């Protein structure tokens, strides 16, 4: 009996970790609705996946308070997991520590660039009034000769910039 119990729990543990990996894999296929080239895992909003008494618990940290994409994230997570046989799902939201662009994975930054969005660059002066603006590298032509048009863009996470070299507007993922 003791041995059986041990074997059972051991098997369960192994299968739990396989399941956790499978869930991470599936989550990594869910695109950010605003920037479809990167996944919600690459964006850094998925903080934890765990299996507790056969229930899949996915912990996420919202990026921006009013980001309409957040509701789509949770719907997509349910849908994708359910379609792959995970019926018992709980999505937990954790607010602290707050999401930061530091959590965006490195290769996702390159994908953003190729999609025409300048990835976040460290911007400690960003909050100062009339701060001397650093120059964001244009994702299209690669020149750093650019200027800020507006701190607010098409989605809460992006600012609007203009490239003085190729004379094209581009979006910049704000450092947050």
């Amino acid at each position, binding site marked *: 009996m003791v041995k059986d119990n041990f074997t059972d729990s051991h098997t369960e543990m192994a299968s739990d970790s396989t399941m956790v990996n499978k869930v991470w894999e599936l989550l990594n296929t869910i695109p950010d609705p605003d920037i479809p080239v990167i996944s919600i895992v690459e964006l850094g909003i998925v903080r934890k996946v765990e299996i507790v008494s056969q229930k899949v618990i996915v912990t996420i940290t*919202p990026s*921006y*308070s*009013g*980001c*309409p994409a957040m509701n789509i994230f949770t719907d997509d997570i349910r849908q994708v997991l359910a379609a792959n046989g995970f019926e018992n799902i709980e999505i937990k939201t*954790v*607010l*602290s*520590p*707050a*999401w930061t662009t530091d959590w965006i994975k490195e290769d996702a930054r390159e994908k953003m660039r190729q999609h025409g969005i300048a990835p976040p660059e460290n911007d400690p002066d*960003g*909050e*100062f*009034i*009339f*701060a001397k603006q650093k120059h964001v590298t244009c994702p299209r032509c690669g020149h750093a000769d650019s200027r800020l*048009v*507006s*701190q*607010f*863009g*098409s989605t*809460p996470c992006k600012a*609007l910039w203009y490239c003085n070299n190729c004379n094209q507007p581009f979006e910049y993922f704000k450092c*947050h």
Partner: protein
Amino acid sequence: MNTKDALINYCLRLADNSMIAGQRLAEWNSCGPYLEEDIALSNMALDFFGQAETMYEYASQLINNQKTADDLAFRRSEREYFNCLLAEQPNGDFAYTMMKQFLFSTYLKYMYETLSSSNDETLKGFAERSLKEVKYHFRHSSEWIIRFGNGTEESLKRAQFALDELWRFTDDLFCMNATDEELISTGITVSSDSIAAKWNLTVKEILQAAHLTIPEKFNVITGGYSGIHSEHLGHLLCEMQYLQRAYPDAKW
């Protein structure tokens, strides 16, 4: 007042502040002075609605889901709203709105900074995230105030008029009542005195850079956090709550 009731009131205050400020900014939708500015105003409104939702959800949890976040936003009348008077004031012209935004977002910036060390985990997380957002609001409105002051005679005149009109509502931002007393004693919040001191310094610095003068004579009006409002809130709620009142439980 017990701690739980005080916490519920405080969540509603935070939520109502954001909700009403967001509703006012949303009135600018498609009326902004130019496209980028229109988008900026809508973006800030969206930040506010997101913040309000988080706090209404928390308040709803604290009352054991007897009311939903939507019930709290759309089915309370003005006396049950705990937002500050500044947030509910009408938009006026663009300079007026920016002055409101400037006085309000400077307050929110220091308030969220302080609340980031709350011993309530939800409030702490909420404040950390909201702080990142209002820093943009603060920078955006401060730059406009400085531009108005150093722009034309007309822009200076309009910014000064806005300051003269709105200054009387600024004491209200730092008013404390039984809710604050209870939460300060339990370490959930701190006295607003330290926030007021920082606010005063920053506001004066920016107004000086904009050649604007704080009015010498004004009637202090307070009461927002205790549910005593100006006539404007009722009109705002009429419009904002119309759909949920006419078609209860309507879903998007």
